[in-house]
């Protein structure tokens, strides 16, 4: 058997937030969690179908990275586990839920589904169902920013692109190819690995010769950072640094967030391989509980503040479900709509 990578002893982040920022981060993580819990419920009630990959446990990564960017201006590129990235990027919960219900009001008009969430308005580039295929697309968006600035003389072109993907993807060629090109051309991109230890049933250590993914940046001359993916402030701090570097034209960063998914790979996964002890150890590091404790401890928020946020988000999620339920199905006569650009 391969040796399991020992989890580094992370110091709690020393990063500071204001009360306002702290509550915003907390709210975004709670939205991610409650939205996904509701998805599980709706899936089991037969309201959504297909493969649904939930994000529970990894919220500190989406919130920590995307809220360190300029959502709606900067670009976000996700994977099949994309609901919460879409929410952090500012796609309304209503339109994400409606997409999962296959409705015309969904962010992809019911044509995409859980693994294909898109929003041009919020600059969410997708929603990619195959491993690694979003990374080149994200790299292209980052190239576009550089191109606008340098070829077209657009001074406002300082957008940064974040490409999210999992540990399993880092054994795929597109990961290495794009790290190479992004470093070569100093593209404004951050590569965010959500290392949740498992590629469905393949343990990370069984799939890779070098389990410390952040170290793979070094051969491209790129900064690689390892961060506690259960600590939103720690993630936010490294993301802020990487975003600033990218925006300043100093090139890409690889960020490896050590995290864990609290549910199976998808709702169809029997999740038989992960040990009870492992799951319990990670559940004890729940990023939302951890951050709530921090906010209370630092006197940045009261119990009532946090409860009020949870209540507000509950109603956002309930409203999203109601909206999705009441929304119309796509029209049969529109079956061919959107195959070509002319089909507006």
């Amino acid at each position, binding site marked *: 058997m391969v040796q399991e990578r020992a989890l580094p002893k992370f110091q709690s982040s020393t990063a500071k937030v204001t009360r306002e920022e702290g509550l915003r981060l907390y709210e975004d993580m709670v939205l991610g969690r409650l939205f996904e819990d509701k998805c599980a419920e709706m899936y089991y009630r037969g309201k959504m179908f297909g493969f649904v990959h939930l994000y529970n446990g990894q919220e500190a990564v989406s919130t920590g990275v995307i809220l360190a960017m300029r959502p709606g201006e900067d*670009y976000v*590129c996700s994977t099949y586990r994309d609901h919460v990235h879409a929410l952090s990027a500012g796609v309304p919960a209503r339109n994400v839920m409606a997409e999962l219900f296959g409705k015309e009001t*969904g*962010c*992809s*008009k*019911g*044509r*995409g*589904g859980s693994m*294909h969430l*898109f*929003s*041009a308005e919020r600059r969410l*580039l*997708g*929603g*990619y*169902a*195959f491993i690694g*295929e979003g*990374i*080149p*697309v*994200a*790299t*292209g*968006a*980052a*190239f*576009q*920013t*550089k*191109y*606008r600035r*340098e*070829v*077209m003389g657009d001074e406002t072109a300082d957008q940064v692109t974040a490409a999210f993907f999992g540990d399993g993807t880092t054994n795929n*060629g*597109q990961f290495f*190819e*794009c790290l*190479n*090109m992004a470093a*070569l051309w100093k593209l404004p991109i951050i590569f965010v690995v959500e290392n949740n230890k498992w590629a469905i049933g393949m343990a990370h250590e069984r799939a890779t010769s070098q389990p410390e993914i952040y170290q793979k940046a070094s051969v491209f001359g790129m900064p690689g950072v390892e961060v506690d993916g259960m600590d939103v402030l720690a993630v936010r701090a490294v993301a802020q640094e990487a975003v600033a570097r990218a925006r300043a034209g100093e090139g890409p960063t690889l960020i490896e967030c050590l995290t864990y998914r609290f549910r199976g790979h998808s709702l169809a996964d029997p999740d038989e391989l992960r040990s009870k002890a492992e799951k319990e150890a990670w559940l004890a590091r729940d990023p939302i509980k951890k951050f709530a404790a921090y906010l209370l401890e630092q006197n940045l928020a009261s119990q009532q503040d946090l409860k009020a946020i949870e209540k507000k988000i509950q109603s956002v999620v309930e409203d999203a479900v109601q909206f999705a339920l009441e929304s119309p199905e796509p029209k049969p006569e529109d079956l061919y*709509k*959107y*195959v*070509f*650009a*002319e*089909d*507006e």
Partner: protein
Amino acid sequence: MAETLMFNALREAIDEEMAKDPTVLVMGEDVGHYGGSYKVTKDLYKKYGELRLLDTPIAENSFTGMAIGAAMTGLRPIIEGMNMGFLLLAFNQIANNAGMLRYTSGGNFKIPMVIRGPGGVGRQLGAEHSQRLEAYFQAVPGLKIVACSTPYNAKGLLKSAIRDDNPVLFFEHVLLYNLKENLPEGEYYLPLDKAEVVRKGNDVTILTYSRMRHHVMQAVKTLEKEGIDPEVIDLISLKPLDFETIGASIRKTHKVIVVEECMRTGGIGAEIIASINDRLFDELDAPVIRLSSQDIPTPYNGTLENLTIVQPYQIVEAAKKMVALKV
């Protein structure tokens, strides 16, 4: 009028569109300093700079995906497949993302890009460099597929492909780059979805594309001497097929021969014949004759290679049989 070689006609198309629109750029292997393996982008980097003639590492799937990301965010990239066969390595990006992403995104994004380069069977290049990817890609929704065949149509079609808001797979032919033709002065655009009637005739409709157009026209010289009057249609648009032009011809001649360079199984001709059966079965005097490449990896040996692709004499024989209704 200026006599222009095909590769220069393509170069003019790219040059003119790049001069006009700063969002147009070329990406691919050796498109910059080297000028493209068939010199289609020769010296353009000197005029437009290295970001607009982007020499990429040899990473087909990734640079194709990059072009898609750039297209989604407002640029109009042209990808050069150094040899179109290499784009098998980019099949995922072309099929899943160039082809399907606009649909799966519910219209959120457009993907205005051109994927162009040399395809077809050359002279003893071996199997891997002798691909006919148009057949492999024709099932992918959302792609337009175009094959040029002369300097004149190469230039006008490529300019239209660059202006199109959809992903266009644009096939040149490795053996046609040195064709010469007088081109009109100034700019012109040709429609991507229209077939070209190369020769009007009444006896039999010959549907073809790319280099096989020239094999067909060689055969036509012999047929003319024997008093046969074929109508030759260059499909140009392999997807969607121009059934207006195809249908008008079949309603006149009632006899059809398809001459193609792709392999027989699952080829362009297979789709054409199925579509003719769907739409025009009653117009046919005889079953459609299909002349395709053999269903084998293209052999290196010259004799075997010639046996693999359709030769003009076979087109003559088929046309004579068809006109005599001895099929």
